[in-house]
């Protein structure tokens, strides 16, 4: 290895001490190291991001102009269904689990995750689950086409794909639950002495809360899809009115999972922003404890707002009013978070490297998604917005410019720590500006389409909707192409190693235990527990 001697001063080279598995198969298939598994999760997520993204491009290509040019409606529906399943369960969630695997042990002063063997298992379920899921596209009758929400009776009209999709969802659920157990066990048991819960970095806090959400709701999803399975294959009628069941019951159970699921995908993003903004503002995070309590409040509220996804099913008036008020309440802790990020930037000393750019774009664009979320909470207005492109615009603002932008911010922020090399800053900034401009061309016009009356999940539309659809499609293709830059940047940094060598601190204002380790971080992060000094923690004053 030519570069072997280059960083002989780092721990990483003491291969004789770290017992790194020697063979490729042993290390990448049987390995239990938190960093290797984190890498596997992140690469898997990137692959799924491109697969799910290609499906989105099929959708945007068909919607480029009115009339059906490219695909049959049924295939269009399976593209929207699969795009959502792949992006949610394959791209966003594994990316955050990958970040958790890499960062939590380093942030709390631990050598590895608490349950390394289970860690290996929870990752390796995923490729099989997604192989099953994606294989349905090549089956007779095609992939699932009833929407990712799997509402019966439509979802069980599908052919054999139903059984495959449900089994795949079960496997993803098992993977998520094991990952969550591991994260909770690690955070509660492996913190360095002196690192109290209320001294943990906010990213660790958000993941602790997220992990509890996962354990609470993944079994609910498993239960609901199992009932679908027995309805289709074993003659039960849980969701069939003719047999005494209720199709709306499925929606209640699904969204009891689904709403916390939304926060599973955004709370770690809040954590990432709360790490990055103080670093580049060179100022402690404003209101650390308020941030933690706001996260916990959002998590609690996520369990009592599910029916706002289904205001039009014909709920009792009292139910509609309750779910409207409860949903509006979420604006309060979310507002606290946004205000605290702004206050962190206030009177700081800011620089704008790529991670900071993505973090700022995250705050602005996620807040726009939050505004449309507040609008959707208002029941009478939701009677107009529901199931239109307004909703599509809303959840892509919170998921793409929210969750995915924060994942990209996190990758740029910690990549030098992971690889020991700086990424190409010019390329990073180009990627940022191209992504941010094109993502708005892609999703902002969809607000107009929804308000003008275009339903979601339709393959063809009246010519009145043509102009904004064309703009949106152009934005979609440009956004998709911009992501090739991201893939190239990762190859450039991780494999070609062309960047400058990274110092242990990497960023001038970075604080926290992970920055006390050399770059790249040693294979077993902290073999001996670090001494906790409050002044090196990211949030300065730990008493507030």
């Amino acid at each position, binding site marked *: 290895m030519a570069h072997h001697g280059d960083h002989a001063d780092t721990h990483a080279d003491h291969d004789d001490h770290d017992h790194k598995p020697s063979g490729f198969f042993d290390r990448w298939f049987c390995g239990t190291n938190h960093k290797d598994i984190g890498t596997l999760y992140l690469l898997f997520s990137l692959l799924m991001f491109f697969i799910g993204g290609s499906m989105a491009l099929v959708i945007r290509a068909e919607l480029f102009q009115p009339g059906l040019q490219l695909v049959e409606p049924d295939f269009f529906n399976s593209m929207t269904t699969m795009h959502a399943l792949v992006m949610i369960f394959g791209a966003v969630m594994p990316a955050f689990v990958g970040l958790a695997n890499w960062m939590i042990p380093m942030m709390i002063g631990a050598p590895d995750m608490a349950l390394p063997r289970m860690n290996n298992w929870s990752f390796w379920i995923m490729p099989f689950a997604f192989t099953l899921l994606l294989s349905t596209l090549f089956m007779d009758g095609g992939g699932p086409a009833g929407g990712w929400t799997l509402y019966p009776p439509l979802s069980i009209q599908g052919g054999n794909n139903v059984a495959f999709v449900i089994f795949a969802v079960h496997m993803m659920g098992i993977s998520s639950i094991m990952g969550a157990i591991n994260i909770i066990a690690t955070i509660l048991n492996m913190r360095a002495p002196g690192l109290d819960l209320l001294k943990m970095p906010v990213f660790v806090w958000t993941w602790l809360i997220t992990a509890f959400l996962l354990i609470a709701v993944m079994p609910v999803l498993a239960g609901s899809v199992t009932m679908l399975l027995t309805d289709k294959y074993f003659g039960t009628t849980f969701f069939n009115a003719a047999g005494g069941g209720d199709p709306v019951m499925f929606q209640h159970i699904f969204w009891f999972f689904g709403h916390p699921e939304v926060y599973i995908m955004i709370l770690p993003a809040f954590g990432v922003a709360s790490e990055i903004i103080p670093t580049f503002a060179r100022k*402690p995070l404003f209101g650390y*404890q308020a941030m933690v309590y706001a996260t916990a409040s959002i998590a609690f509220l996520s369990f009592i707002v599910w029916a706002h996804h289904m205001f039009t099913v014909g709920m009792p008036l009292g139910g509609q009013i309750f779910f409207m008020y409860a949903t509006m309440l979420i604006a309060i802790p979310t507002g606290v978070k946004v205000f605290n990020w702004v206050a962190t930037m206030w009177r*700081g000393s800011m620089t704008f490297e790529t991670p900071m750019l993505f973090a700022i774009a995250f705050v602005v664009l996620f807040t726009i998604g939050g505004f449309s979320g507040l609008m959707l909470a208002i029941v009478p*207005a939701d009677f*107009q917005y529901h199931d239109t492109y307004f909703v599509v615009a809303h959840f892509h603002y919170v998921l793409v410019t929210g969750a995915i932008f924060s994942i990209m911010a996190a990758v740029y922020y910690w990549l030098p720590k992971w690889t020991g090399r700086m990424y190409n800053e010019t390329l990073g900034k180009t990627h940022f500006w191209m992504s941010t401009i094109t993502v708005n061309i892609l999703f902002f016009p969809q607000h107009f389409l929804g308000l003008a009356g275009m339903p979601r999940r339709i393959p*063809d539309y009246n010519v009145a909707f043509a102009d904004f659809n064309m703009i949106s499609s152009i934005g979609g293709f440009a956004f998709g192409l911009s992501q090739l830059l991201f893939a190239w940047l990762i190859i450039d940094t991780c494999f070609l190693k062309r960047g400058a060598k990274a110092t242990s601190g990497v960023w001038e204002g970075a604080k926290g235990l992970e920055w006390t380790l050399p770059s790249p971080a040693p294979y077993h992060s902290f073999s001996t527990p670090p001494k906790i000094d409050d002044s090196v923690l990211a949030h300065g004053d730990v008493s507030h």
Partner: protein
Amino acid sequence: MKRQLGQLAGSGLALLVSTSVMANPERWQLNMTPGVTATSQDVYHLHMLILWVCVVIGILVFGAMFYAMFKFRKSKGAVPAKFTHSTTAEVIWTAIPILILLVMAYPATQTLLKVADTGNAELTVKVTGYQWKWRYEYLGQDVNFMSSLARNADEARQVGSGIDPNSVENYLLDVDHPLVIPTGIKIRFVITADDVIHSWWVPSLGWKQDAIPGFINEAWTQVDQPGTYRGQCAELCGKDHGFMPIVVVAKPRAEFDAWMAEQKAAKANPEAVAQSAPVVPVTKS
């Protein structure tokens, strides 16, 4: 292009400030239609209220952010402050959103109560969703019919049809038999489905309501202005979900009564013919 941009700006401005009737989607439409019923206009005003509240909050928050980004840059020699919290600030920015939410919740609840009141209707129409068409039934009138996508649009929408959607009037928003309703009276809808879940939505009426097999949902409207109002199924219901439009034609009471009489006559005639015709026994061979 320039003309289109001008058109965009013009119609955008018009749409944001005017409340004029716009029954059907228009090119470059930016905003929700105020619709043609009292409730749809309440919903529109509620929508505009929340929108402006969000815009004002957005300007303040993003304004502060961008001010900070330009003012507190390291390249301008900014020295970071040391403060980590401010209880006063945190109490203020928790309390003010609560007040704003209360201001939004009051009109929202008022409007919701109005929308939910389906009592005292003079006419009830039963709507049933099928894959992929609607049945309309005038309860107590013995008149019912199916309503499907107009034939010309159905031909044009096939993959490789070679027909330009721009050449089809009201492409995908036209049906063979529209729902006809009288103006000026409260009409109650009872909505259900026969196979999977559909959702009945005409934006100009201001609401959508899911059609659920085995269950009956209620909604109501009162249209005062005669006209043709178009909408679509809003809940994914299978491959032709995008191809089951809804058309409501609101006619003045007298015209509606005449139309209804015509329907009844058309229904009565074939029956009369059937009764007078000799009954031919079916013979087995």
